[in-house]
């Protein structure tokens, strides 16, 4: 363990000198270029930056969807860089929930089926699956629309379903990639309120990528600014 860690409790996320480079023709794209970051359990962190700043790449590294070129990404004491792809899948299934800008619901499935999908991968038993998906959907205020298809819902409602799905396996870490990007400002605020409330009531760590500074300032406890794959500055809110 890093002796410089001054905290008693283990950090939820510790990113150390992580890089992610892509070959592009002759050259190399340094999407993430040596970022170190520590996030406490229960913290709500916003990653901000222009497009191409590396914030989404960093989020994908935290999600275990991508692997760093170098450095380590330690979540709850486990280094994602050292996991097999099978272990990463298990990590994504049990430890993280993800919310996307484009919602990424499966259009052919009902809302309930969408929320149940991660539990299918986790081999959660059928009756428990039904109960947990109902709980999740009630938590996001969609308890009455369980048999609807995503196309029958508004954008905000779809994002709530996406959130309910992210919560299905009760993860300790919620990753949100521009969750309000496809929503009008009021609906976006509603979603972030929901995320914050859930984070507080469940003690869940939240990392959100956004380019809307105003929203980030309202909801996040800490703002992390990225540019050209590097961490530029941090701002802690009250």
């Amino acid at each position, binding site marked *: 363990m890093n002796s410089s860690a001054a905290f008693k409790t283990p950090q939820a996320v510790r990113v150390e000198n992580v890089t992610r480079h892509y070959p592009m023709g002759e050259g190399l794209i340094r999407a993430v270029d040596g970022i170190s970051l520590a996030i406490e359990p229960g913290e709500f962190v916003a990653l901000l930056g222009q497009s191409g700043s590396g914030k989404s790449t960093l989020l*994908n590294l935290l*999600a275990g*969807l*991508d692997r760093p070129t170098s450095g380590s990404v330690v979540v709850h004491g486990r280094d994602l860089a050292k996991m097999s*792809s*099978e272990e990463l*899948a*298990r990590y*994504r*299934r*049990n430890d993280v*929930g*993800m919310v*996307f*800008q*484009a919602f*990424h*619901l*499966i259009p*052919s*499935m009902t809302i309930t089926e969408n929320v149940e*999908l*991660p539990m*299918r*991968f*986790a*081999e959660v038993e059928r009756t428990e699956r039904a109960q947990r998906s109902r709980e999740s959907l009630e938590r996001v205020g969609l308890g009455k629309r369980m048999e609807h298809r995503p196309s029958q819902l508004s954008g905000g409602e779809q994002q709530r379903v996406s959130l309910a*799905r*992210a919560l299905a*396996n009760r993860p300790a870490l919620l990753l949100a990639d*521009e969750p309000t*990007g496809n929503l009008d400002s009021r609906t976006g605020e509603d979603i972030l309120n929901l995320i914050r409330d859930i984070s507080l009531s469940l003690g869940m760590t939240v990392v959100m990528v956004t380019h809307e500074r105003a929203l980030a300032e309202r909801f996040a406890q800490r703002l992390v600014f990225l540019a050209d794959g590097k961490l530029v500055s941090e701002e802690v809110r009250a």
Partner: protein
Amino acid sequence: MTGYDLLELAVRNLRQSKLRNGLTTVGISVGVASLVAMLSLGVGLQQLATRRLAGSGMFDTVFVTSRQDFRGFDKEDDQKAPQPEKSPVLDEAARVKMSQLKNVTEVEPEIRVMGEIVSGGETHFGFVTGLPMSARENEAFDTLTGKFFSSDNADEAILLQDFAKELNPKNPSELIGREISLRYGERQALSQDSGDRPQALGGETNSSGGAANGDDFGFSVVRRVQKLRVVGLVDSEPYGGMRTVSRGRIFLPVGTTERLNMAQFTDMRSSLRGASGKTYMTLTVRVKDPAKVSAVQDAINQMGYRTFSVLDATKSLRRFFTVLDLFLGIFGSLALAVATLAIINTLVMAVLERRREIGVMKAIGASDSDVKKLFFTEAGAMGFFGGLLGIALGFAIGKAINIGTGIYLKQHQLPPEPVWIMPVWLIGAAIAFSIVVSLLAGLYPASRAAKLDPVQTLKYE
């Protein structure tokens, strides 16, 4: 993911693009149907051939000859046997011994002699053969007019329909119950000391001391007439015309022919033997069950005799059908091979279309193997449903073939016969084969889906 969940997801995915997956499934079913139709045709033809042979009543019969006489059907077999001069003769003792073998029901000589029926001042020539009582079960007697022999020793005759027409062109069935006179040659054995013994040259007759009881010391042929009652008329020759005793026009119980001592051509050979007692050229051994034929054959071979059974002949027949089935199978598989390409195509399309969905599934916790299994299951499900449909389609094709050949046979005044038979094993095998082939076809698309990079697929466009 559990198997049930996999199946549920796979089926729901297949239902998403009903037309495309439906067409692919129909493609598989056409492949399976052609395979099934071809193989069933092979099975049907084989059963048809076997049925013909079995109906001939030859399958449960072993023909026994002495190695001293002639040569056998199988030259190799003759060569590995003991020298002919040291082989035993087929005599009464051998006949008794064979009849005591396990599973043997009858041991009868094959008797076929010339005879003449005297009727209304005309004489009608015909071969007379002796039939065992077991001939009753032969298919030729299925359409018997009248009755079969009352006993193995009765003075009764069954006539071939054609011969009966010769005797009574207007109404052959009138002959049933009537008496006919059969003129035949009786073999009268000469004993060594009998007065009518012809003068032998030199000391030859004296040296054949083994014929002391005189039976086959020599014989003369004497014309006899025997009254026989016609009990039945038979349409076709028994044993499919394939045995010596089939080729006759007048059939008597074999016991009667023996009792009457009818002279046969082969008696000449017997008289040369100089052995004691009566000998036979051929004995026909009937076995309880065709499956036991080869065991009985072995036992008789052990006794030093030469044997032949239709089983030997069917070996090459079976080899022929194995090759035929193989070729039919290969032709039938061609359509299935095309269907395999259709599966690959459909699934590759599905992978392309569902890139985003696959990415989402991975992002929310599906492993590479989950994705792979899902596509495999989809391929397998298409194979299963294609197999089921193919069986139904193949069945319909087969029915059509049977109806078609039935009409054709009827036009040629032949009884209808199924040439297309779908055995149960083929149904199971076809579905299993269809699934296996589909899974193989799913290998490439499934691994392609599993390798998709979720980051790329989830990029917001």
